[in-house]
């Protein structure tokens, strides 16, 4: 927690469980986000990062998936314990979400303007004209050219990048305190990705919105994050300021993740990969969930490691951290 960011959301021990599955798909996840701060959750597909976001929004596919434990205190209320009607007052109002697929995330039967206006009317109780004015204002803020004309266009008339801008306009229409972006640029091509990221960052900075960015793209992380949480198989394995995670990764999984990023410069040898596959929920190892793939695994890894602070603000869940020291000890 940084002193300059007053705490907005603090998640404590959040666990999500699927019916008929033995292991928690999201297990004991804790993090905080301050106002105006950006936390990136990174991890590969299926590590539980999107489910974490859906759990916070109260959008888990019930009854198949349930929050099994934990708290998520947002502006003084525990999101996990809220009833559906209170939750839907918060959604789209104090807390909003941008989805991965701009092509399918807008209702094809209504114009873009109507959909943004609907989000405004739902939470502000203003009349149609005022909501429409707000929709235009939001499209303009989302740097959509000819915003007035776009108001009356249907989603299929907009390009993917435009749609994602419209989604951002809709999500921010009620000035939420927290924005959750679930891989907002994955479906866009690279030049548009950069524009959309810049837009999100600008709007966030103007409004002081807290941002929870879910991504598997380390380039996005480097560009947007204040702090990073690395997830593996449902747990946060490492968390810290973005510079610390990139320059001094401590968890073997993070180290492997950093090694598997292609760079523009000359490369020596093959790109690094992490051996093996993510364990399925049925075959989840006891203790550290990365231990079956970890080159540094030892007997102590059969016990679940706690997130331990190894540098100010930098926490890692590895019994063998700091790795260099332990490896040197083993060799000695």
């Amino acid at each position: 927690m940084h002193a300059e960011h007053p705490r907005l959301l603090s998640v404590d021990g959040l666990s999500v469980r699927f019916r008929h599955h033995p292991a928690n798909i999201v297990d004991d996840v804790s993090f905080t986000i301050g106002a105006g701060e950006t936390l990136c959750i990174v991890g590969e597909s299926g590590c539980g990062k999107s489910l974490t976001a859906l759990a916070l929004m109260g959008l888990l596919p019930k009854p198949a998936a349930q929050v099994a434990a934990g708290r998520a205190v947002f502006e003084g209320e525990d999101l996990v314990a809220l009833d559906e009607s209170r939750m839907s007052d918060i959604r789209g109002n104090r807390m909003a979400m941008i989805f991965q697929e701009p092509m399918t995330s807008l209702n094809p039967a209504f114009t873009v303007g109507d959909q943004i206006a609907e989000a405004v009317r739902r939470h502000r109780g203003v009349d149609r004209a005022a909501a429409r004015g707000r929709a235009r204002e939001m499209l303009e803020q989302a740097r959509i050219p000819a915003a007035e004309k776009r108001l009356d266009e249907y989603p299929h008339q907009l390009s993917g990048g435009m749609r994602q801008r419209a989604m951002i306009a809709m999500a921010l229409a009620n000035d939420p305190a927290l924005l959750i972006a679930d891989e907002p640029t994955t479906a866009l091509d690279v030049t548009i990705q950069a524009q959309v990221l810049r837009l999100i960052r600008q709007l966030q900075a103007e409004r002081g919105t807290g941002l929870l960015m879910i991504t598997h793209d380390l380039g996005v992380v480097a560009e947007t994050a204040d702090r990073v949480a690395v997830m593996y198989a449902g747990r946060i394995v490492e968390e810290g300021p973005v510079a610390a995670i990139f320059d001094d990764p401590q968890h073997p999984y993070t180290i492997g993740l950093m090694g598997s990023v292609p760079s523009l410069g000359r490369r020596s040898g093959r790109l690094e990969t992490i051996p093996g596959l993510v364990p399925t929920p049925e075959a989840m190892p006891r203790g550290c969930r990365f231990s079956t793939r970890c080159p540094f695994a030892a007997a102590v890894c059969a016990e679940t490691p706690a997130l331990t602070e190894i540098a100010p603000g930098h926490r890692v869940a590895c019994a063998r951290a700091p790795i260099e020291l332990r490896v040197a000890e083993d060799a000695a």
Partner: protein
Amino acid sequence: MAAPDAVPGAARAPLPGPVDEPVPPRRGSRSWTKLRSNPVALLGAALVLFFVLVAALAPVLPVADPTATDWLAVRKAPSAAHWFGTDEIGRDVLARMIWGAQASLLAGVVSVGIAVAIGVPLGMMAGYWGGWTDAAISRVTEALLAVPFLILAIALAAFLGPSLTNAMIAIGLSAMPIFIRLARGQTLSVMTEDYVEGARAIGLGHGAIIGRYVLPNIFPPILVQATLTIATAIIAEASLSFLGLGQQPPAPSWGSMLNVAKNFLEQAPWMALWPGIAIFLVVLGFNLLGDGLRDALDPREL
């Protein structure tokens, strides 16, 4: 439920930022423009409109009494006196056609209206809520679908008693399971779309999601099914009338005329020809109009 006022998000804060410049109002309906520029749909609309007008104007049109018999003019071929000929007891076929349009169109439209009005909400509920709601609605639907359409309509009409109103209710209830199934299936497929999750993410309730996100997106196939079912319903009314369960003689309907005419196909083919052509044209009209409406209402088609 937390006390709403204790929380910052609960208060309906005024809109952030002034909305100073006036925004031009929403543009008018594009669907109407699209429908008008579709000649096939206009032909369908013209056919439907023609028959609706004929049915509505039956009391004021200068035609003979549709129930007056004339034993001197039995089964006369079309002539100047009787443009469409006469039937087996000397009634004017043109007059019976015009008055019969009322019963047939009513039977087609009202019964499909009943089927859609009951079936589509039930189907959307089943698809939207799933679980026990879906199980209960779907099992009953399947049980109804197991009975052939016409048998079910006959059984219901016999149970309700013979009259045109009861025939329409019976046909509507018999056609309802098709709409439940269609609406349920379409709802299930729409529910997997990201925009439904998006609707929840902006805090919309179930009513708004069903009304504004599900219904408009399942509407086109339902519209097409409805126009096709109008044709089936007109023919079903004919069958019920034939059995004495629909329009009661001597009041005419196209179906009952057709059913009587089949006994005189060789001696008086015109008795079958006119109702047959009329049913064909009105069904064609509804189908063309339905296709055109579907295209006009689909925002994805330009």
